[in-house]
């Protein structure tokens, strides 16, 4: 590990792509993987909410943004411990999610999809303006906790400790979410109501309460993505909208409502755009749309969709 502030003299001074193809690809893949983890956290909540509630939540990115703002406020402004700040941010956004579902979304489940679109789109505008009123329009820059500074050497190049942490956190959440849905009673109830809402209700599952819980859970995942980004990004109105398009592409590639699909889709989009930037800088933007188009042509329901 290279201590921050020390010049790295160990790295080869003439590092070049020629002759180091495999190392370069491995390193770029690892960087792409860390980017993919933020996308996974965002896409996970989006796809869970769609799979269970049947609602395509356009405002999911706004919950991501709120997660970042709350984490910034607790950690960057009030000096709360980093981990506690993230936990508090998740709780705060869960409350916002609870209120959104309990008082708004609940009333439109039986309505046409256009109403869901209008309502959730309305929330984007409301929440964007709300953060402008509370925090102002200027981008906030939260500090990096000192224990995350520094790099480790990966194939002879410095790789940030924080990105390793993000990869670990993303995988950890993936396992946790899988256990929650596959191994717990709550998860079984959620899956039951996702596959047959009426039957699940008939055998005594309190569907409205369950839906509120699922929506709040999706909000927590979005907030985690936002909060974990704060030490390396900026917090500004509109960061949710900047991310949500990619999250939609991921859920479409993976299959709408499919959790495994969201994970694989995030990995595909994160790593392939990293490789696109390295190998085809001119077509990079176009690349993920191309992947989506190809997937939709071969499997219109997405990779894991049914």
């Amino acid at each position, binding site marked *: 590990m*290279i201590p*921050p*502030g*020390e*010049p*790295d003299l160990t*790295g080869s*001074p*003439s*590092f*070049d*792509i020629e002759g*180091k193809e495999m190392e*370069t690809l491995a*390193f*770029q893949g690892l*960087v*792409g993987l*860390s*980017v993919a983890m*933020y996308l996974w956290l965002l896409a996970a909540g989006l796809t869970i909410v769609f799979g269970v509630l049947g609602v395509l939540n356009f405002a999911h990115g706004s919950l991501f943004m709120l997660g970042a703002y709350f984490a910034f406020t607790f950690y960057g402004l009030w000096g709360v411990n980093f981990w506690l700040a993230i936990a508090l941010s998740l709780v*705060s956004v869960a409350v916002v999610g609870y209120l959104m579902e309990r008082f708004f979304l609940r009333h439109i489940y039986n309505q046409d999809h256009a109403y869901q679109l209008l309502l959730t789109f309305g929330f984007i505008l409301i929440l964007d303006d709300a953060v*402008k*009123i*509370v925090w102002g*329009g*200027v*981008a906030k*820059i939260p*500090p*990096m906790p000192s224990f995350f500074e520094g*790099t480790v050497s990966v194939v002879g*190049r*410095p*790789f*940030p400790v*924080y*990105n390793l942490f993000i990869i670990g956190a993303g995988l950890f959440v993936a396992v946790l979410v899988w256990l929650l849905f596959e191994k717990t009673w709550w998860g079984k109830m959620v899956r039951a109501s996702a596959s047959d809402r009426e039957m699940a209700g008939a055998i005594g599952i309190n569907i409205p309460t369950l839906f509120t819980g699922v929506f709040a859970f999706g909000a927590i995942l979005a907030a985690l993505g936002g909060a974990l*980004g704060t030490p*390396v*990004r*900026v917090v*500004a*109105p*509109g*960061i949710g909208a*900047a*991310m949500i398009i990619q999250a939609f592409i991921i859920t479409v590639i993976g299959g709408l409502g499919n959790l495994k699909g969201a994970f694989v889709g995030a990995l595909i989009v994160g790593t392939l*755009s*990293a490789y696109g*930037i*390295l190998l085809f*800088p*001119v077509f*990079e*933007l176009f690349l993920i749309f191309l992947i989506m188009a190809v997937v939709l042509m071969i499997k219109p329901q997405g990779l894991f969709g049914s």
Partner: protein
Amino acid sequence: MRERKKISRRAFLKTAAAGIGGITLGLKGIEASAQDKTPAKAKPARKALGVDVIKLGGQGVISGAHADYGWQIQGGATLAIEEINAKGGVLGSKLELKFMDEELKPAVAVKNARYLATEWGAHLLFGVDSSGSAMAIGPILPELDRICMFDHASTHRLTEELVYEKGIKQIFRIAAPVYQEGNLAAMIFKEFPNIKRWAGIHCDYEYGYSSWALFKDTLKKYRPDVEFVAIAWAPFWTMDFSSHISAVMAANPDGIHATPWAGEGVMLLRQALMLGVFDKIQAWFQCMGASVDILEGISNEVAAGKFKDKLWATARYIHNYPDTPENKKFVEAFRKRWNRFPNYSAENAYSTIYVFKAALEKSRSLKTADLVKAIEGMKIMTPAGERFFRPEDHQAIYAVPGGRVVKDPNYPIPVLGDLKVFPAQAYYRNPPFEPLKMGK
């Protein structure tokens, strides 16, 4: 705590709503009474320009991650207008500002320009942060019959193509264009014989294309030995530059030339630090890195010496140059009014208003054709130094230095030090302009 905040916010919103309602009613009242009075009461003294107020329609981005730029435009313009109105206005007429959010979207900017000129009745237009917006507004100015003073949008094509080639005389630009990003950077780094391998991390739109093209073009003229080894294009609103940084670092560059600005610039620099870039390279030129919002954003990292004095930047004005009474007075007034240092877009907007004042006083007319004549060839002292509006392309000629981003005990935020000053004529492109190959 949270609960209390919520209640007070609701109360605040209620008050705000009531307040806005009140203001609107109040304004309507004033308007109505003014209309009632005008015909009845003959004006004692006729205004030289024939109007009570000269309406100035401004635009900038005041939402999203780049909002500080529009805010600074608004802040600079407002300060100038307040100063001028306090001294009786321009030839007895007061200045009035209406400022709109262009959202960095050309369609919005065009809609705003049309609204400001035709419905609101702006006599003069200024502003615009986005190059795309500027290129969209330029061509409709003859039809609107209004001047627009561009005070931030920086593509060279605005003045080189739209004014010099196509002859759209209503376009003027007070801000230094991408000659700052491209040509000045090349002038600085041609002096560093050991920096031979350059890479770019650039905005995937007009601004990034033109900056990178000018940098390569100029540097290659002076230094045929340099190579441009890697380029990564980042779309607008990139949240994570890690993949871009690691991609160009794979080519082992000596120097990096980068355009992402505002919050994106801060993110790029923070993520480059994380990836240990400043241990490997010799110089990083963050084009508009001397903008106040970026300097504020990386203040802790600069103070901790993390950039190892390898971070270079410029801007379209920096508050610590030039050392003139005009500049000192402006910085002091701006800090007093807004409690912040002025960004370049603030100075550019402030000076815009004074150029308008000078043009109105010189031509004693509100006619666009007269004002165009008044501004063409104008020499005017501004906080950024003396500006000369070159008649051929309507570009204001003035020099802004580049330098290293350093911590200075005299300032609460980092500033540019080790300043490299070149006369504007030496690094601005001059007519006739050679066409430049640019794009991805």
